[in-house]
């Protein structure tokens, strides 16, 4: 059984993974310890969480252009998320995902994706189709 959420067509290949969800915004520079692979900003709702190979489901993107390089660098060391599923992103995350070959989608038809997807839920991201599939939903 599964439920499908529709979004704007995105970037990158299809991927399946476990969702790591919060209503916060995101910046690779502001929020992550990119060596340890954890959220390192104390004020972030995901502080201390391991982000490696999780599908990050977050609200928006914070300032800072560094994520455009950092995603590529994180991917080269396999200390990266599996995919980005956001309500709305800025150009930096799109540019970074494009360089790193990481899946990215945003702009959901059904509303706030951080409430539509549950933390720990198994999901499939299909950027070219503009779909996120909640694999265990009835």
């Amino acid at each position, binding site marked *: 059984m599964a439920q499908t959420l529709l979004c704007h*067509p995105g970037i990158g290949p299809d991927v399946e993974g476990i969702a790591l969800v919060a209503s916060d915004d995101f910046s690779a520079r502001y929020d992550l310890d990119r060596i340890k692979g954890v959220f390192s900003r104390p*004020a972030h709702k995901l502080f201390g969480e391991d982000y490696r190979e999780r599908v990050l489901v977050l609200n*928006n993107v*914070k300032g*800072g*252009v560094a994520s455009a390089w*950092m995603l590529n*660098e994180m991917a080269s*060391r396999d200390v990266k998320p599996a995919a980005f599923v956001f309500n709305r992103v*800025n150009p930096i995350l799109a540019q970074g995902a494009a360089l790193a070959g990481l899946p990215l989608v945003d702009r959901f038809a059904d509303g706030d994706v951080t409430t539509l997807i549950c933390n720990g839920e198994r999901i499939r991201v299909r950027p070219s189709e503009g779909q996120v599939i909640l694999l265990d939903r009835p």
Partner: protein
Amino acid sequence: MKLNEEERALLAGEGGRARQWAIRHQIEVGRFFDAEDMVEVDQAHVMADPESLGEAGVRWLSDMAGLPEAERRVRVPTITDPRGVDFAAYKRLHQTDEMATLEERAIRAFEAMGVLMTNTCINYQTILPPVRGEHVAFGDTGVVIYSNAVFGARSNFEGGPSAIAAGLTGRTPRYGYHLEKNRLGTKLFELRHQPKDFSEWGALGAVVGRGSGSYWAVPVITGVENAPTSDDLKHFGAALASFGSVAMFHMPGVTPEAPTLADAFDGPPPPASPITAEDIANVYEGYAARGDKVDVVVFSAPQLSLIELEKVANLLDGRRVHSGTTLIAATSPEIKFAADRMGLTRRIEASGGIVLSGVCFYQSYAREMAEANGWSRLMSNSAKLVNIIGGYGYKPTLATMERCVDSAVAGKVL
């Protein structure tokens, strides 16, 4: 996306492999944002410090730099954002030789591509300010918001790869702030308190940024009684971009695209959110730590103008930075040269401060510097910096430049 003949030729590889990668990257990003076509740009500005590049990014740049000259050279003037290592000072800061070596490799690659190593996030104050209506591909959030709002130029946030792509192709996808319709106001804020110094302008940027909350929001700020200085707006814009990921604002009577409030919106303005002295005070209070030992006082983010450096020098004259505290002021190479010539560097360093050239603190391996130097409590008058630096393990405090210097001399947060 509609591509013209030249763009189709680049996509077919007729301009070489670097330009083929660049146009592919631009098409992928452009399609994501529903761009209909490309727009030519006059300048590109690349953020690519080694800490964000990492080994993978430097290798990527070096591969590009190894292509034949005709393939790898940028087509429009392309300049750089601050770097991570000041070769004249890195050992004093306990940065490593490995960091310096990575920096050297990145610089060699950029130079092979014809990129001008300006190493600055205040290029609009020091290199070549853009003009109203000029399309550019700028790669620093503070630079983009200042260029869009204060000059009326047109740029999106162009991260390092996309800024390099713009340098190689001379164009960028036409979406976001290249389009007139996206430059209109979306939210209105009314000042009920006039910011008094750089840190208050930064704190105002924090309030408006938190209240805007999206790259696609264009805040409009009314109630500004006196024209701010370029440095005031630099701190305001940098904080606004940092706290809110905002790339554009209007300040009727100050910024060029909205001489009046009516010009700022497509239709009647929305209800205004007031910003009071208490709102500004709350920003400071969020970082307060009176009495704490202060490890490092930083004037950076954005780099300092000559006028700001003079203020630091004036505040330090005849005083000595506490032996347990490091005071750093970061500026661009052009301003550092002027500060050397005018004696400002000598005055700051005579008091125990360090003037860095071509770098910005948070782009300089801030986490590793903290570990190597035993730093935890950081003070700055930059709201942008205190917003960023918590993620690097620092405990930040925002204060005026005067209070930062007083605290550096006392060795504790005053």
